[in-house]
């Protein structure tokens, strides 16, 4: 029994990271119906910048806001450089442009920091603690807390502040919000900034576990994308549920079916979700009037 619990716990903790990255996809999709396909590079670049900040001798509590600020700026840059023009022209150019931005970020990281995987120092200890026979490290707990904290804060902001209400309004109906005097362009900018913040947080949280390297996010990002699609691209906290589920499922599959089959259940889940609930398990079916 404890084996199953351990598998579920370990897998679910990785699932939390998928959920956080998936949440970054949601933020921009809800306002602009566009997605940054270079989100993984955002995660990786923010982790690298944070690592460089640590290496300058900055204390950890200053490194985190520094890394997050970098993420926000990068998010804003992507919006300005790759998304805004395409959206103004009502085109799909952002797909290619964000992909290109990602490739650019990848090459930049290879040239600036090299291709090696480097350890990411953290004040949170990684010695395991044991509860009822389940091994869990404080590092993993910090990941869970960090994920929920950052998502909680963004959701709170969306629900409680005036700017957040504007955010929700644009998500609900961009044109109507525009007629009410809400600038959709500004809100989309904001959503990309927030998406960058979330990506940076994911990078900082996951780096001590995955180590920092140009390819650190490439495996994560595909799973995060699956989570976002399965949960629904406007599902809010739905990504957490799906993320936890997918993480645990991977871990269980790898134990019971065989370690070669780790990825299979997630992909089957993705196909099933697309076939049965195209808007996602937690997504709202959109009504389009023509």
């Amino acid at each position, binding site marked *: 029994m404890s*084996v199953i619990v*351990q598998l579920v716990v370990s897998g679910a903790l990785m699932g939390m990271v998928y959920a956080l990255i998936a949440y970054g996809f949601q933020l921009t999709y809800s306002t602009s119906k566009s997605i940054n396909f270079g989100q993984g590079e955002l995660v990786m670049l923010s982790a690298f910048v944070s690592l460089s900040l640590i290496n300058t001798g900055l204390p950890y509590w200053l490194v985190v806001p520094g890394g997050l600020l970098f993420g926000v700026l990068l998010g804003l840059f992507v919006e300005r450089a790759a998304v805004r023009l395409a959206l103004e022209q009502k085109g799909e150019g952002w797909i290619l442009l964000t992909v290109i931005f990602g490739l650019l970020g990848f090459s930049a990281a290879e040239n600036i920091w090299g291709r090696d995987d480097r350890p990411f120092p953290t004040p949170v200890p990684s*010695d*395991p603690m044991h509860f009822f026979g389940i091994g869990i490290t404080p590092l993993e707990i910090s990941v869970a807390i960090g994920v929920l904290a950052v998502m909680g804060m963004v959701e709170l902001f969306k629900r409680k502040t005036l700017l957040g209400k504007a955010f929700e309004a644009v998500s609900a109906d961009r044109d109507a919000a525009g007629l009410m005097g809400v600038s959709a362009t500004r809100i989309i900018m904001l959503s990309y900034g927030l998406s960058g913040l979330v990506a940076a947080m994911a990078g900082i949280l996951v780096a001590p576990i995955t180590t920092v390297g140009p390819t650190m996010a490439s495996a994560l990002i595909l799973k995060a994308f699956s989570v976002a699609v399965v949960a629904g691209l406007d599902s809010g906290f739905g990504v957490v549920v799906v993320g936890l589920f997918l993480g645990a499922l991977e871990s269980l599959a790898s*134990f019971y079916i065989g*370690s070669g089959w780790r990825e299979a259940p997630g992909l089957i889940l993705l196909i099933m979700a697309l076939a049965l609930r195209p808007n996602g398990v937690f997504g709202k079916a959109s009504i389009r009037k023509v």
Partner: protein
Amino acid sequence: MKNTLLASLLCIAATQVYAGDTLKIAITGPFSGGSAPMGTSMRDGAKLAIAEINAAGGVSVGKTKMKIEVVERDDEGKNDRGALIAQELASMDDLSGVIGTVNTGVVLAGDKHLQEKGITRIITPAAGSASMTQWVNKADKPGAKDLSIFRFAAHDGIQAAMVVEDAIKRKFTKVALLHDSTNYGVSGRDDLLDQIKKQGDKLEVVATEKFNIGDKDMTAQLLSAKAKGAQAILIWGIGPELAAVANGMAKNGLKVPLIGGWTLSMSNFIDNAGSNGNGTLMPQTFIEEPITPRVKSFIESYHKAYGVTRIPSPVSAAQGYDAVLIFAAAVTQAQSTDTHKIKDALEDLKAPVKGVIATWKQPFSKWDPANVQTHEAFRREQAVMGMVSDGRVVFADSADRARLVKSMK
């Protein structure tokens, strides 16, 4: 304008004259990515030997002394890059030999191009058995008649034998096999299974689990081993994932020894595993301890030349160093920079070569497609068990130290 043109013409002429007096060797390997500690250490060890030879005037060929010129290529540990590099090297007319490469998959992808042209090639430190066994006689197809590929590394056959031997010596009966999904990991698993059978089936394999490059969460694999009562984990993989396994073992309370291929001595395993890596056992051909004056001077010059206090992969560095010395000895014996003549000399090296791993007496012999050992330099006696202890690899068994000192004589 005229002057510049003249100057550049002179330059070209000068380099051409220079090129005629040099011995051109290519060094290839992953100088970036997860295998980089092995690749860069091998390269730096080899370049240390080259610098020493050049400082002494060069390799003597006839009455002249030839300086060694190096062509470096980073294959990034990627099979396709390796194939491209091998094609490029095979098309160079004045190349005397190729030394290097870490990843077995890269060797498999590239070596056929070098073999076609008969370019002398010393594989080091890639240990996967398949790099050499691809050339031997098979049931359906005869092996290479004349092989220009040599190996200078303790191949996985030797290593797997030592790992299994060690597990039996420690009185284990149930073990779990973990391996990565690359050519290296899969062929390592097969070698282990083969050796377990050969050594009398004293070990029961309770679980065989694999993981992918980049995996960080090994919980499922380790719990499977734990649930089935494994007393030791025998493992074949490279640094970052090995570290994830060691850390996962600590997390899941799996307190059994981790024994595996020599990659467990890579710096990116030792650093990322930290204290969880202590006690890990692996075969080594070189331990970074100044056991003889020759070894001491090698370690010190490496540290000084590259500004480190620890060689990232001591085995790779020492093998790179000795491989160059052996290659240079073959050039001297062949009295030629012609790669085919160097190959013949390597197959029958007369003078012993004083390396830092051993004193090499006839490391290779005439290629026999029925016996892969003819082009394998290492035997069981050149390898020892190493153990990770507080960030370094030390002798697991102190008797081995005395044995190695003796073999250096």
